[in-house]
């Protein structure tokens, strides 16, 4: 099971490049695709989900080119788009039955699967309620269920936790971890904590290019010894922000505790263990500096 993204670029009308020469090779596991807004994550997801074509480059699924054999991937693809609709007059069971038929699943199997999925996403109690009356979070859970209908080998989820309450977010993260065994899961998000909880690999994307591809541990190693906690008076915070990359601040009785990313510590700062958010900001900052140079 292998998904290869080979020098993929995408240009939209107007000449705007959303992706440029993006290359990545994926094997079973959960890939967290992290990047700021407008980085090209959704474009990449759309290309991988056969929704849109790459302008340049190619994508292969188990050696088969997506452009010439899209159905080979579609048959084993589960896709949760960032923005999708539902048929408001159908209830969750009817909607999933319809999509199961579109995916070519037989009636008996799909009925059993739908029951299980509705339990899994915690919608069993409202299964007969028309989707038009669902909240945003409930619709999102229907979207998660439909992505799992055909037991996908490649599961692509684009901003899946948007609109979910904290409890459902935890539930979904656990679900992704369970699913990650013998399949490729691509989790696209800008929420670092989602990736931290589930990803076995992380790809950082910015301005349409791959900034880094590494395991979470490797990314953390990159910022080892570069994260500092610095206690400073509130009045000095703005000056400090201009001088240093600050990933977090919290106000306490002794002043502002700032988390600083720097090769050398500010005066009086203490070293702290890095987290994934530090690594993410550090890599992005380096990338921007490189582009600017």
């Amino acid at each position: 099971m292998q998904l290869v993204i080979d020098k993929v670029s995408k240009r939209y009308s107007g000449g705007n490049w959303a992706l440029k020469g993006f290359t990545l090779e994926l094997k079973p596991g959960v890939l967290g695709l992290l990047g700021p807004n407008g980085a090209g994550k959704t474009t990449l997801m759309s290309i991988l989900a056969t929704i849109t074509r790459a302008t340049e480059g190619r994508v292969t699924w188990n050696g088969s080119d997506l452009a010439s054999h899209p159905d080979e991937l579609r048959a084993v693809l589960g896709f949760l788009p960032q923005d999708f609709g539902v048929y408001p007059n159908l209830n969750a069971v009817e909607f999933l039955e319809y999509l199961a038929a579109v995916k070519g699943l037989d009636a008996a199997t799909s009925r059993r699967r739908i029951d299980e999925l509705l339990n899994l996403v915690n919608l069993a109690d409202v299964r007969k309620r028309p989707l038009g009356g669902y909240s945003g979070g409930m619709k999102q859970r229907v979207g998660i269920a439909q992505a799992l209908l055909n037991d996908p080998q490649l599961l692509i989820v684009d901003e899946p936790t948007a609109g979910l309450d904290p409890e459902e977010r935890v539930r979904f993260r656990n679900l992704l971890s369970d699913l990650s065994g013998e399949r490729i899961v691509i989790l696209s998000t800008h929420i670092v904590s989602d990736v931290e909880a589930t990803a076995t690999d992380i790809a950082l994307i910015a301005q349409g290019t791959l900034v880094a591809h590494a395991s979470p541990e490797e990314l953390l190693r990159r910022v080892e010894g570069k994260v500092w906690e610095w206690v400073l008076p509130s009045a000095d915070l703005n000056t400090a922000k201009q001088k240093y990359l600050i990933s977090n601040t919290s106000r306490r009785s002794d002043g502002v505790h700032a988390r600083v990313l720097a090769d050398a510590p500010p005066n009086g700062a203490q070293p702290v263990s890095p987290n994934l958010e530090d690594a993410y900001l550090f890599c992005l900052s380096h990338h921007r500096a490189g582009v600017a140079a």
Partner: protein
Amino acid sequence: MNHPRVLYQMVRADFLERVRRYSFLLTLAFAAYLAWGAATGRVVLRLDEYRGVFNSAWLGSMMTMVGTMFISLVGFYIVKNAILRDEQTRVGRILASTPMSKIFYTLAKTLSNFAVLTLMIAVLAVTALFMQFTHAEDAHYHLGTLLAPFLWVGIPAMAVTAAVAVLFETLPVLRGGVGNVIYFFVWVGALAASDKKGIDDYAGLFVIAHSMQTALKKVNPAYNNDFALSIGDHTQVTKRFVWTGVDWTAAIIWHRMLWILIALAIAAVASLFFHRFDPARAWSFRRKKSPAAASTNGDAQATSPIAEGRPSAARLTPLLSEARENRFWQLVMSELRLMLQGQRWWWYAVALGLLIAGAASPTVAARSGVVTAAWLWPALVWSQMGARESRHATESLIFSSARTLNRQLPAVWVAGFIVATVTGGGYALRLLASADWHRLLAWFAGALFIPSLALALGTLSGTSKPFEAIYTVWWYLGPLNHAPGFDFIGSVTPVSRPFFYIVSSAILMTAAYFARRMRMAYA
């Protein structure tokens, strides 16, 4: 908040949003087509065997009548999406949170509709001037005379059309496909009433026609008041007469301006029904909430808190390979279910009644009348075909499934064909019993044609509106009035053209296939 500058900004934003969409090019293309039709003699205004000399008065009035006749019909369907667009773009929710009043909003939408329709009329006005130059029948250009009918007739007609479109959008029953079908009959009824009673209709046809008829009577006292604005038939025009235009008296202008006041009143009435983007109200019109929905009205409560042992993906039953086979008929049944979802019991009762009446009516004429009605009844079911995915934003879910183009699209067509054969089945059974093969073939061609037309228009446009408008007009001209070439049911043998409709169906299906293929990144 509710002062003229804000009104101007609202109208401006809505107008710019429309004219910067590609679909607006189609709108202008329609106006250009009308203009081209009139300029090349394909749209003819004749009084018995006469037409007027192409002077400023005649051309201005003729083009105004062309505009008010056709744009008041087609333009309605073009602009009847002003509120819907705010819903779809979710801009409406932002507007709803401002101090904007409801009447202010419906007035702004009416003015925006009016601006679009007036732009179409303006295309015709420019063409009128161009025609006078190219036909060169009268070298005297009177700009005021040429533009007066556009001003006094065209503008009020567009104002009414614009306001009615907003009213239809705010009325829960009329905002969808039902409204699209009903408007056609309202439009026909309004024109017919003014024609019979000689009243000043909103399209202003009578004002101009009466003036022309009076002038012609002076030239030819034997003139029988025959008056026609038709497409394609110009062979009957053999004579010309000079008409110098309507005498725009204060009384006439006052009557015309009255229509603008009526348009404003309609916009005000529309505000009474405007839901102000309240999702609860919008939803309640579609389907009553279940008691559970009404009680929680929000996110579902977790039935099994995480602490009690979370459900695991490991519990999902693995799918065997045979479970993934190509089950076309299962998909057809799913599409059929989806098509008929939400229909109430009375919808099925009427369809069943028409089915039985189609079989049981004593005469061929009665039976063909029943099948004519039976094939209008599911118009809104067919109109979803090909457009549903776009309308409900499920394209990304469906287009990323395997063999969508070769399975799902044909399944939609077959489901539509089943609806046609079942609803018109009573009539077909009688034809079969009486071995009336020619009519049966015509009926079969009709059953092929309807879903093909729906699927083609749905996939091409991504909305249900073109089918609802075109099919209703086609149904009115053909099956109801047996206009030659339009009768796809073919119940009247001399005008029946089954092979034409079979070939047309094939072409439409091909068009639907390629339209869908173009929307998908990979076929």
